[in-house]
């Protein structure tokens, strides 16, 4: 019934859609895939800075910036009697996802992959087109890095969704009740270290309030909770419960669109930058559970920029800039998704810009419609956005977060219309560079460019709050989702 036993019950916000790593949708499915598939390496808990370590490989080495050698651990075996897991399978998995013909959304993770060379049954060499430092933390331990069975997949016609032809991870996918529950049971053939729990039940509960109540009613052992509930839980935690407070990789910023006719003038954009009181957002929306971000890179990590250029609101400066630009009665719309956190943030932005003399009207959209607003394939609407409150789930490596602001992303995800050649070259250098100091300098410079353009107000990286039974210690990946395989019972 509880974590003290052999069953671990964790709650996720949504149901799985597909178990094909190439097409999986979100972290939710990855939680299951982390159990049923194997990747060459794995990450540690984000609170420890997510260090990577070996997992499905007994050896994984960067031989030179463009070649990585690996050897699979011995005894990995496919379910369904498809034999041992081989380097051939690794080659198939990586090259499949990188193949543009497959149109995998995750292809970019293997953008730099040239090919995988099979050396023998268990070892091979990954050849990159260009040096790509981040591969160990961005690609290999995640979805894209999960190894699937070549024989099985080919037999299934090259694609599958919810019924993987074969798995090889520590758990077997044993039961699925749609939109309710997924059950994983220990794989008896798993050669690696035996996970602490023989059975993992993953419950689908979309609503945070309900999930917290269900946790308190002992329906599961691990759940994320609403940010707004954190204070109360901290003050009076449920019995035998620990609270996890961390920063997720999801970064939030305010887009100021320089393509908008109202914001063509950089001074006007800067006026907006000076007019947003981020501190109020942190307090009002995030209960001060998170710090202000200095860019898209998570604060407190080594790549983080030391500080924002405009670190505090300055309404006078803002007004002065407007006057300088000869603009009065500035009235802007703020495009925002319609959930409670985002609209609360928008309202604070609205209120603080009001103080700077800028009128803001909030325009909420449902998620799907929101993305359509800035999509150039839907027409010229993207040039008309004034302000947009945006957030992306980022990665560990700065390149993963900076990639969306390249010039070619204008009209896709770069809603600021930020078009900087220096940023583009910087990006190319950043992914090729292996020297960490240089990479830090590069990424900081790129964030400076962003801020100077007047196109961005960096707000924060969203906090991650979860509660779990003290009987075990969870491991959470930087994407905010747990890896149940690595949960450790506390003695």
């Amino acid at each position, binding site marked *: 019934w509880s974590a003290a036993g052999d069953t671990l019950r964790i709650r996720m916000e949504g149901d799985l859609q597909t178990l094909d790593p190439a097409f999986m949708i979100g972290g939710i499915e990855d939680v299951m895939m982390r159990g049923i598939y194997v990747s060459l390496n794995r990450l540690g808990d984000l609170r420890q800075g997510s260090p990577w370590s070996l997992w499905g490989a007994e050896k994984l080495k960067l031989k030179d910036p463009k070649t990585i050698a690996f050897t699979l651990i011995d005894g990995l075996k496919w379910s369904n009697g498809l034999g041992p897991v081989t380097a051939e399978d690794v080659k198939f998995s990586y090259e499949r996802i990188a193949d543009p013909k497959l149109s995998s959304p995750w292809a970019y993770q293997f953008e730099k992959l040239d090919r995988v060379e099979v050396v023998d049954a268990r070892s091979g060499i990954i050849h990159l087109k260009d040096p790509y430092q981040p591969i160990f933390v961005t690609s290999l331990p995640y979805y894209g890095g999960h190894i699937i069975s070549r024989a099985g997949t080919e037999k299934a016609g090259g694609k599958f969704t*919810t019924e993987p032809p074969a798995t090889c991870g520590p758990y077997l996918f044993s039961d699925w009740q749609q*939109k309710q529950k997924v059950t994983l049971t220990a794989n008896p053939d798993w050669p690696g270290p035996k996970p602490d729990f023989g059975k993992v039940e993953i419950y689908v509960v979309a609503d945070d309030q309900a999930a917290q109540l269900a946790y308190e009613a002992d329906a599961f052992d691990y759940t994320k909770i609403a940010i707004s509930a954190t204070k109360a839980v901290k003050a009076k935690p449920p019995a035998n419960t620990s609270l996890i407070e961390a920063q997720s990789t999801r970064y939030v910023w305010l887009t100021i669109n320089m393509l908008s006719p109202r914001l063509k003038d950089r001074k006007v954009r800067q006026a907006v930058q000076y007019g947003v009181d981020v501190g109020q957002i942190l307090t009002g929306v995030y209960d001060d559970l998170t710090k202000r971000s200095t860019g898209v890179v998570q604060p407190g990590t080594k790549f983080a920029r030391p500080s924002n250029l405009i670190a505090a609101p300055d309404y006078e400066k803002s007004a002065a800039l407007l006057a300088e630009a000869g603009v009065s009665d500035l009235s802007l719309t703020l495009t925002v998704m319609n959930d409670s956190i985002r609209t609360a943030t928008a309202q604070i932005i609205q209120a603080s810009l009001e103080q700077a003399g800028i009128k803001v009207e909030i325009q909420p959209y449902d998620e799907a419609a929101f993305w359509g607003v800035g999509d150039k394939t839907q027409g010229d609407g993207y040039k008309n956005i004034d302000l947009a409150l945006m957030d992306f789930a980022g990665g560990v490596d700065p390149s993963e977060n900076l990639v969306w602001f390249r010039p070619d992303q204008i009209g896709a995800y770069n809603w600021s219309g930020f078009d900087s050649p220096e940023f583009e070259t910087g990006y190319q250098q950043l992914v090729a560079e292996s020297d960490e100091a240089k990479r830090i300098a590069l990424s900081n410079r790129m964030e400076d460019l962003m801020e100077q353009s007047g196109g961005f107000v960096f707000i924060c990286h969203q906090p991650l709050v979860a509660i779990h039974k003290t009987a075990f210690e969870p491991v959470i990946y930087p994407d905010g989702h747990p890896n149940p395989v690595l949960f450790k019972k506390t003695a």
Partner: protein
Amino acid sequence: MLAYAVKRIGLGLLILVLVMVAMYAAVFLVPGDPATVALGPRATPELKRLLIERMGLDQPVWWQIVEFFRNALTGNLGYDVWSNRPVSTLVMEALPNTLILGLTALAVALLIGVPLGCLSVMRRGTAADAAIGVLSVGVIAVPSFVVAIYSLLLFAVTLRWLPAIGAGEAGDLFSQARALVMPAAAIALGWIGYIARMVRASMMEVMGEPHIRTARSFGLPEWKIVSKYALRIAIIPTISLVAVGLGSILSSAVFVEAVFARPGIGKLITDAVSTRNYPVVMGTVLIMTAIYVSITIAADLLIARLDPRVRDVFRG
């Protein structure tokens, strides 16, 4: 009777077609695509296109509609854009939960609401009537999520009598029934008030009719007059109301289903709409409309059973 049935079914089919046409028009208007919703910035243009093609949205709208109905005729409602599972399977997994929930809630609401309505008619003008009135109208306005959350707190967290979430273990009727209690109650509460009020109103009307005076003039006891002579007639408008209500319960149970994490049609359809998973939207709407239409037909037949005057119209 047969002619009537054929006519009603024909009309029902027409409604289905119209609803689906309207749905396709809405899809045409509503922006957004599943890939972007699901993947945000990771959605590549190629993938978007792939999914749009998979959903057939690149075809002319009229063609999509024709295709949809052609497939629907063969029992194929399309495929989930991501998992590629047949929509009919998705619906069939969610539908029983919702139907059971909706029917239980309605049954509870009727079992409590109708007697309450009768009681307030029998005690009309007294404090009991007033109390029932205020309670039943007041309860209509209490949002079901409030009921849901507080009953969760009480019965699941504090007392631990009932499971907090889910629809119960598959195949275990007892656990399913236990899981049904709170969500059904949360939905039923407002309906109790609504039905009590409705029954009272139509009963008051009936009580003024001459045949009630006839029954009185024969000294029949008041409870018998209310429960047999008046209720048979007064319940008729309530049936139409409940029929329409069941339709709306099925799709509006979303909040309650969300709080109790019960997989159901309401959630299926809202999720599908918000993720622009159009095949699921279309298939589900088709089935829900068909159910809605059938419920109204069933209600009409039930009314015909209860009211011989109407019955004769059908015979004719």
